[in-house]
């Protein structure tokens, strides 16, 4: 992989050049939190941020999206609205790039989703390294570093950003700047290693995911699920903010006074009552305990069986979003803990 460095003082110059590759979006501050947004001006970008409220998944899988328009006589005509828009996402953390790679497995595997595919092709990603806070457990989830899925990835090594060039597009961005980027030498590599080591030591949380699948099977009937079910409000916030939750609902609407209409999909959550409800009235996950258990089970066990790793990247968003403080890392930790027989 091509590795270069950019003097920090030249970052705004780089940003202005990169705009020719698409509309520039980056984290900006909003009421004390961060959101990915179109930049009005470069100084609004906040590259030192903890986490955005919504993950970048909103660009690839929008909260609401028209799939088809229906007109009598024409049938279902695919909507291409917004699919060809070129965007450059600046400042995506490793866990979030990792999460997009996980979405790729679902949406670009068998039966490719062409809407996702088009957006993925037209949205460039410039990643940036970060410092974990007390809710991050991406290292435990093996998502603290990412080796593909971005066009460029920046590591802050003091006076420079060290840049991994992930794609030909990333390379074009570098070339478009003329000679802003410089080659890296041994001192830069050492600076990187030191940064990597410091990051490792900065984690507050550590959960063990080896054999978690087996533990989930063993603890399927655990009382912990009922306890969580009594707390959970089924608000679905944890799904909305999760960078790897991809469940969606589809609905058809007819335009008033006509027989034309459209088919839309929108984000959904397995915590909602009707997620597994069928017409006979049967609901395969009627009570909250079974739904919250399903969320954990699917991410930490089901996805492993299907795609070889958990679908959680440890970004900590669900913990921030949950109104009743249900904490993913804590739940995993409790499931793993050896409890004495008497307390069961």
């Amino acid at each position, binding site marked *: 992989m091509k590795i270069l460095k950019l003097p920090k003082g030249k970052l705004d110059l780089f940003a202005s050049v990169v705009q020719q590759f698409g509309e520039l979006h980056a984290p900006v501050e909003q009421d004390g939190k961060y959101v990915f947004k179109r930049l009005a001006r470069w100084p609004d970008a906040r590259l030192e941020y903890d986490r955005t409220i919504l993950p970048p998944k909103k660009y690839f899988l929008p909260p609401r999206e028209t799939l*088809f328009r229906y007109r009598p006589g024409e049938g279902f005509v695919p909507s291409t609205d917004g699919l060809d828009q070129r965007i450059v996402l600046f400042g995506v953390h490793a866990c979030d790039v990792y999460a997009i790679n996980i979405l790729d497995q679902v949406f670009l595997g068998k039966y490719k989703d062409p809407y996702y595919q088009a957006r993925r092709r037209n949205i460039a990603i410039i990643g940036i390294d970060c410092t974990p806070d007390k809710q991050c457990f991406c290292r435990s989830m093996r998502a603290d570093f990412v080796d593909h899925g971005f066009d460029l990835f920046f590591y802050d090594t003091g006076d420079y950003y060290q840049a991994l060039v992930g794609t030909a597009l990333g390379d074009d961005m570098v070339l478009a700047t003329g000679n802003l980027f410089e080659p890296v030498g041994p001192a830069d590599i050492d600076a990187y290693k030191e940064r990597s080591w410091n990051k490792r030591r900065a984690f507050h949380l550590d959960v063990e995911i080896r054999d978690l699948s087996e533990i989930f099977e063993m603890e399927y009937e655990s009382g912990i699920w009922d306890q969580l079910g009594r707390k959970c409000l089924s608000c679905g916030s944890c799904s909305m903010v999760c960078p790897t939750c991809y469940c969606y609902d589809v609905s058809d609407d007819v335009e008033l006074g006509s027989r034309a209409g459209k088919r839309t999909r929108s984000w959904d959550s397995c915590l909602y009552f009707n997620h597994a409800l069928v017409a006979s009235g049967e609901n395969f996950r009627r009570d909250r305990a079974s739904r919250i258990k399903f969320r954990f*089970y699917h991410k930490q066990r089901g996805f492993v069986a299907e795609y070889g790793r958990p679908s959680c990247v440890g970004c900590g968003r669900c913990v921030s979003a949950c109104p009743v403080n249900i904490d993913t890392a804590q739940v995993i930790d409790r499931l793993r803990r050896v409890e004495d027989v008497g307390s069961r």
Partner: protein
Amino acid sequence: MLVADEVATYHPVLTENPYQPHMARIVRIHKMVENNHLFTLRFLEDQLAHSFRHQPGQFIMLSVPGAGEMPISISSSPSRPEVLELCVRRVGRVTDALYRLKTNDLVGVRGPYGNGYPMQEIMANDVLLAAGGLGMAPLRSLLWYALDHRDKFGNITLMYGAKRPEDMLFREELVALVDRTDINCLLTVDADPSGAWKGHVGLLPALFDYAKIDPARTYAAVCGPPVVYKFILQRLLDLGFPKNRILMSLERRMKCGVGKCGHCSIGYKYTCMQGPIFTYWDAINLPEMI
């Protein structure tokens, strides 16, 4: 939205869209049973009508314009191509809208989806089909496939139960099978107030008394409401059926049919991709299965 000729023809949304419904004409509506009509469809594109192939047990996503999309089993056998027969029970929003349509109206179809019955494995064995109520819909495809390739299968037994004779799906064609010697067709009704029923009266499991089944060389395909599974599965296990030779067809909420929307998941499998046909062995290993 881009108008058609501006869009480069390679746009994946236009050319390779797994969600694209293909328009099909309703060529016949047969009112088999109150609120359980049989819809016969033919794709508008001749090419598609000729090339569409499915496996018994697979399903399609059926769009009723303006109302929505839903999973429906293909009730016709692949051995009788060109048209698709769907047995649809009227239960809610989308099925209601379908029931408002008339012959020659258009619907959308995409598929076929799901694994279908493992025909390669089943062939050369005996087949036991056991269905209750609407469970006959997916099994009918398998039934006619086996009858149309009669020499490829061993003994064929059908056990089907409905509440009353007038609730029996595909009644005429099934009654006509009773006299055939190449299939043991056992039909029963829970009750027969009319007194005109010539078949068995009683619950479905009672039909085992009239069937000769060798569990060592039989595949059992079971489909129906939960009570059917409850009684039939136990019976099959008691007879000594290996767990991977009991095949069940499951229903889950489905919004995509292609492993994306997440609604159909059971434990760690997606009903639309690894199902809807599951073995009993899957069932006891997946939580929430039945």
